């Protein structure tokens, strides 16, 4: 089957169209942002209180710092990860299936690449808002211990892209939203629970440890932890970054292909 023909020799994205796609997403967000206060901000803070303070009181020190300070960078990365996956599941699926917003864009000069890039930019905006708020609270709890902490929003943006891009592909591909429950249960929740957010992955049995390495969340959590606590991450920084970039790039290609296919029908 012939692919939708924009990319033949032409640029895959145009900045103006990509911004127009972002603008639409933000226009909608302006109307529904209240709901995201819970998932994007209140939930992580509650987590912090329950685990950092509640359970943390019994855990004592991890890696030379109190448990609260230890989980903050992980929860930060997990927030970015979950926001990204969540915002690329039903909203993207719905814009194909229910509102057919992408079909509407398709009839205009907007390219498939613009649709993908515009939505990814929106995800970054969302994640940055959540990250900034959470960082502020973490600072108030005294959980930021290094001058590198301001780099965490960048790491979170990368985690978000690494999670969002492949998820967009999935959302454009599936025919039924039942699949999202599976993605959450078999990818998002295990990543959050075993991806170095609540306890070091070194404590995992050696056989399952490589599974954690496969999750963008673990790489983000370790980079964030190095930034807020001032240590050195387990892998070279470039390696962690490389994995995240690879996820984002491969995911973007997948998303582009799935979008093109979906719009071709």
């Amino acid at each position, binding site marked *: 089957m012939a692919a939708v023909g924009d990319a033949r020799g032409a640029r895959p994205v145009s900045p103006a169209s990509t911004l127009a796609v972002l603008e639409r997403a933000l226009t909608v967000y302006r109307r*529904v942002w*209240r*709901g995201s206060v*819970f*998932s994007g901000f*209140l*939930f992580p803070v*509650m*987590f912090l*209180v*329950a*685990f950092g303070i*509640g*359970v943390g*009181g*019994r*855990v*004592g020190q*991890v890696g030379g710092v109190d*448990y609260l300070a230890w989980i903050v960078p992980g929860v930060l990365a997990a927030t970015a990860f979950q926001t990204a996956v969540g915002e690329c599941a039903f909203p993207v699926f719905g814009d194909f299936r229910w509102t057919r917003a992408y079909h509407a864009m398709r009839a205009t000069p907007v390219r498939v690449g613009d649709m993908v890039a515009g939505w990814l930019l929106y995800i970054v905006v969302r994640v940055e808002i959540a990250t900034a708020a959470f960082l502020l609270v973490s600072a108030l709890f005294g959980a930021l211990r290094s001058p590198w902490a301001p780099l965490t929003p960048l790491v979170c943006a990368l985690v978000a892209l690494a999670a969002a891009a492949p998820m967009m592909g999935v959302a454009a591909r599936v*025919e*039924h939203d*039942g*699949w999202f*429950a*599976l993605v959450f*249960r*078999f990818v998002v*929740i*295990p990543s959050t*629970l*075993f991806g170095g957010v*609540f*306890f070091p992955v070194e*404590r*995992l049995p050696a056989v399952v440890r490589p599974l954690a390495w496969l999750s963008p969340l673990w790489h983000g959590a370790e980079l964030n932890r190095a930034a807020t606590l001032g240590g050195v991450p387990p892998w070279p920084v470039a390696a962690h970054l490389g994995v995240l970039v690879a996820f984002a790039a491969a995911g973007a290609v997948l998303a582009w292909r799935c979008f093109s296919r979906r719009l071709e029908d």
Partner: protein
Amino acid sequence: MTMMAAARVAGRAAGVSPGRVGAVIARNVGALRSGPAYWWVLLSGFFEPVLYLLSIGVGVGAMVGTIEAGGRVMSYAAFVAPAMLAVAAMSGALAETTFNFFFKVKYGRTFEAVLATPVRPVEIALGELGWAMIRGSVYTGAFIVLLVATGLSSVAGGLLAFPATMLVGVAFGALGMAASTLMRGWQDFDLMAAGQFALFLFSGTFSPVGDYPAAVRALVEALPLYHAVELVRGLTVGPGGWALAGHAGYLVVLAAGCLAVAARRLERLLCR
């Protein structure tokens, strides 16, 4: 058993037909089977509490060591396990009676179609609740087997805990349904999710309520999940005693009250 009893009592009062309630349940079973990832979705519901138990109970638990609760010293995993069981019963019941239920009332028009038949609103409510219970019980039953197999619960404790989780399910199912009939739109679900999440984190699930300041503790002790957790924990790891009857009584009253509200509100919403 508790559910059946509750259904029978409520039924006698309202002239409910078990056959029609059954028909509402059967519709759900049919609807579920038509989904593509049917078995996977069903199966995956079981994994969530197991993963939490492994991550928090075992993973974080290794850093916590032992914990003292209710006058007994136990491993952190043993402390968290019954709480996860109660949470599984709660979230299973809520998932079915809030989001899915609301969709059916408001957008799916499923109930309008059902009501064109002799089925009555209260039968819909009971049917939906029954369905939530069936689905929830599969998960909690499997989870209990796991707990017994791993030595986190005695066999007798597990056998006692099963009806307790059903009671927890009925109570939260009724609560969820009553809440759904009061929802104005999807936005309210964010509020509800926040409430559910707060219950999950602070109901004596991950740390004993004794750790909290007195005021917070009093608040937690007034909320339903606390009683659910204490009931299930008491039955599986102890201590038993009359306090358990109090927790169970709280849940029975909650279930009955919410069911009454849900049936009345549903009548008003559907039979205008």
